[in-house]
């Protein structure tokens, strides 16, 4: 599969994804789905914002799937931080949430995050969203 993601990645390299959610079991379900999709080179998991920041610093991440409700920060704050500090690399974001009100939604739109996935979701829904973001065909 050929996916072109950023100027740095070579044409035939698969992207890497980071999952950030404090709920460990959701992470493992998503990780399983993403591995099964065979879309990614690496599927990395973080349970806290600090852990996620560290992992993004250590390896090249193309897509971050982040929960809106995080214990120490809001998902949107995290996205904001990453956009400021890693502005050189084009990182895509997918925000997931169990509940969104208008205020949260406008906040998300202002951040330039166009894709939101509402919990509970199925495997197909997750993969479809991911493919839309990465602009690749659904496997």
């Amino acid at each position, binding site marked *: 599969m050929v996916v072109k993601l950023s100027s740095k990645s070579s044409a035939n390299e698969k992207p890497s994804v980071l999952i950030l959610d404090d*709920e460990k*079991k*959701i992470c493992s*379900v*998503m990780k*399983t*789905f993403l591995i*099964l999709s065979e879309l990614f080179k690496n599927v990395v998991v973080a349970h806290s914002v600090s852990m996620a920041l560290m992992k993004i610093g250590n390896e090249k991440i193309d897509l971050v799937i982040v929960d809106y*409700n995080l*214990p*120490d*920060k809001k998902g949107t704050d995290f996205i904001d931080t990453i956009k400021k500090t890693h502005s050189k690399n084009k990182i895509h974001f997918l925000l997931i*949430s*169990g*509940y969104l*009100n208008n205020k949260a939604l406008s906040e998300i739109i202002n951040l330039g995050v166009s894709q939101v996935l*509402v*919990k*509970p*979701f*199925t*495997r197909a829904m997750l993969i479809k969203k991911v493919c839309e973001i990465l602009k690749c065909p659904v496997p």
Partner: protein
Amino acid sequence: MNNYTLYDTLFNAVTVLDTKGKILYSNHYFSILFKMSPRVIKKINTIFELFNGKGEFPNAIFERVINEPGSYVSEEIELQINELDTQCTVVIKFTSLEDKNILVCFNDISIETKLHSKYRTQLSELKNSHLQILQADKLATIGELSAGISHEISNPLTIAAGNIEIIEVLILEEKLKNEDLIKDSIRDVVESHNRITSIILNMKSFLRQQTEEEEEEREYCNLEEVILDSIKFTNPSFKKHNIKIVQNFSKKDIVALINRTKILQVLVNLLSNALDILVEYKIKDPKLEIEIVRNRDDNLLEIRVADNGPGIPTQDKSEIFKSFFTTKAIGEGTGLGLSIATQIIEAHQGVLLLEKTNIGASFLIQLPSIEIQSYTQSEIMQRARTVSKNDTIKIMVLDNEVKILNIFNKIFENEGIIFLGSANGYDALEVLENINVDLIITDYIMPHLSGLEFSKKVRELDINCPILYLSTESNKGILNRDRDELGIEGIILKPFSKEGVLKAIYQALKNKKEL
């Protein structure tokens, strides 16, 4: 007949009967009441004939006034004078006269009865709307917390759904040999299911509208558990806004006699108020402290809910407990929360106060200790049930398990026994210094103070009532050891039946009397 002409001047309907019920005399108002002319009345032989088809004549009282001369008043009697008229209600007074005849006075109380029944319907309507307001407030609270709750439900739902898909994949790809993976997934599904169920059950029990009887119900509860339940409700919202909840209590040993659902409603209300204010003012390091204190000096249980928000402005301090006072925008708060909370706490003979603090707002709930609460509660119950019984028995039961206290509460309810429950030996001793009881039942194995130590201290106080131990089969021997030295009358073995308990109690009281 002229003897009776004085009655002509009366404003009430009056008639004089002989002992056979014959109408000897009737005044002007009598004919007005029965809507008959004096001429027609004269044609009627007896009062029984007059009443025929109009209402029930109080024969028993009539006979009584003949046999035992005096003055007697009937109950309310409904009269249907004729088909066109509406019913009227009268009370009839019978008085024996010196000439052996009977003076019968009618008092028309139709207006009073109508007012009374009107007042009663209005009162019941008011009660109804009160219940509806309570319910509306609970619904409003849940509405405010819905974001947090739906997040709390969608997480386990995602996990469950995800794991089912994983199992499906494993089956399709015939990776069934990978048993551990499947087992893990199934376990996750079950766990998630349990999490959702517990959230829903909790919400259901909170939202269920209580009937009037249930409103009066009290049960023994661990106060810590009720508080933890209230935190469970609000925690998702607190977590979302990074508000710390400091729980200044640990051991599950403070027991209260309360209506669980209602106290839960008060606590959830106080917590969500604090949440709103901390979020609105964007307080740095927001936190909420909950504390339980047993105030031994005043026999009170105190729950303190304090936040580090902006506090309540001086001019609002006297207003916040009033109905419809709210600082929230229109549509966001009902303004009923604190006034309902006050009503609930007052129904528990307690007080809800705003404390003076330097930072934030601190609410204090004061409830009477269980010993006092159970005493007044069962005293009121017994009064309502048995008016004549003056030999009511007062029994104290000491057990640190709320379940056991609740069972005893049920057993004694219909037995004319006044019940003092206690969950802590030291508190029980304090109460025993002031209140006399006829019998004490104490659990044998308890934290703080064991049954043995407690009994010793009771005897030191010079209290000589019989004591029964409550224990299991394996501890049967303790009875022989303590019987003589501490005057332990007997032992109730767990599990026990109502009959067994009552038998042991009456036996112990009988032995005491014979001494």
